[in-house]
């Protein structure tokens, strides 16, 4: 069902944990949907120097969190903002259609964390270009 890459990130998650004095924190999902993702950022000179995640959810949710943190570490906030759910899914060598919402969750988690940082620093939050709902979004093709 899952690619080797998904299983690798699920079995050996990267950047799992929290940052107690994080500069930005994002939390998305809810327990009813069966997944919650929390992203912690440390930002220095507009660059994400550290990132951690905590996730309650399925294998794809954990792997998406792990991959997303890898993709944004060391990036500028602008670059990190542009990491899409498709980029996360592709980096994981694909997700089953029913699990694509997990990658959406990762994108939203990053966005929330970045905007949390921006608000804390007196900046305008950036606007979501394509607001996506991750919960109860049934894809057309269910395997």
């Amino acid at each position: 069902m899952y690619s080797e890459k998904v299983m690798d990130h699920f079995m050996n998650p990267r950047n799992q944990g929290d940052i107690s004095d994080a500069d930005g924190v994002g939390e998305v999902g809810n327990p009813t949907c069966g997944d919650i993702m929390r992203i912690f950022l440390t930002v220095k000179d507009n660059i994400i120097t550290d990132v951690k995640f905590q996730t309650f959810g399925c294998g794809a949710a954990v792997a998406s969190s792990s991959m997303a943190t890898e993709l944004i570490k060391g990036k500028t906030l602008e670059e990190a903002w542009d990491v899409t759910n498709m980029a996360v899914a592709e980096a994981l060598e694909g997700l089953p259609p029913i699990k694509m919402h997990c990658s959406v969750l990762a994108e939203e988690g990053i966005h929330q964390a970045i905007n949390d940082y921006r608000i804390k620093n007196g900046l305008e939050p950036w606007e979501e270009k394509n607001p996506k709902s991750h919960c109860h979004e049934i894809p057309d093709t269910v395997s």
Partner: protein
Amino acid sequence: MTAKRIVYMDHSATTATAQEVVDVMVPWIRKGFGNPSSLYSIARESKKVVEEARANVASALGSHPDEIYFTSGGTESDNWAIKGVAYANRKKGNHIITSAIEHHAVLHTVEYLERQGFEITYLPVDETGQIRIDDLKAAITEKTILVSIMFANNEIGTIEPVAEIGKVCRERGIYFHTDAVQAIGNVPIDVQALQIDLLSLSAHKFYGPKGVGALYIRKGVRIDNFLHGGGQERRKRAGTENVAGIVGLGCAIEMAVSDMDERNRRVQALRDRILAGILEQIPYVRLNGHPEKRLPGNLNISFDFIEGESILLLLDHFGICASTGSACTSGTLEPSHVLLAIGLPAETAHGSLRLTLGQENTDEDVDYVLMHLQTVVQRLREMSPLYADHLKRVPHV
């Protein structure tokens, strides 16, 4: 590469066909290939073993052999029983009563009938998963033609009050169908004493082969045919008989009922030891289903703060085969309808694990599962924001 240890604790999904069953089946795949409907000697032998298997099934249920019809399995039996009775008795009424926790083979069948103009009542269940007889009595109307309530639930193992349901239905002249797919070999069944009119069973749930089952139809029940074609099964179920499968079913059901008490005592003792171990080692868990009236091998547990598919993936890494009521394995995003029906909040349903033990499990299997389950739960909790929040609220735990 060393062989990975496999501990199979998903017997409600399916069972490994017993060697004895395979041995009696094999001759009827090649040498005894004759079509039971043909006239010559090898065909007559096929006919004979099919009838022997029918007698075995009848004997296991306390019915007459003429009341047993072979099918392709539990799903076909449920479809036939429900649609067949619904259409044959439509003039009498269009109301069917079932429960909220049925298998999808029943639920999706009655939903189909609902779209065809039938009225369906879904009885709720209490927190243990049992229907209330008073709810059943209150739901019955003059138009009620069928009550379909499962014998035992596949997810939480709860055994329904079948004898009382049978009594109520017989008194009111309403047909009673029960999906007994999970119950055969686990609970004594006598269709006469329990006043059951139709009963579905499936061989692969009790160490028989897949793709074969049976429907018991009490003599006199008005039911339409489901599969139309040749005159097999006394003109009620067309299609050349799955001879080898039927022979396997006959053998498996004989074994399933012959040493039932002793086997179940052993399986239940193993199950109880896992439960005790979990309760001792792992905090924030809850047992789902009835504390006593449950299938001997069934254990359904919710672990707070974590999600079921993740539990399964990590258990699979250790070779442990189990199942969950979390949405994430069901092909939809909704958690199990059974766990929601017993009143669990969605997040608790997402964190459920079902272990169903069977006859080949051992004390070593129990130790192995307990050892790894604790690690798996701890590892996922350390990753969970819900657990992190919990620790902040209860810092000294």
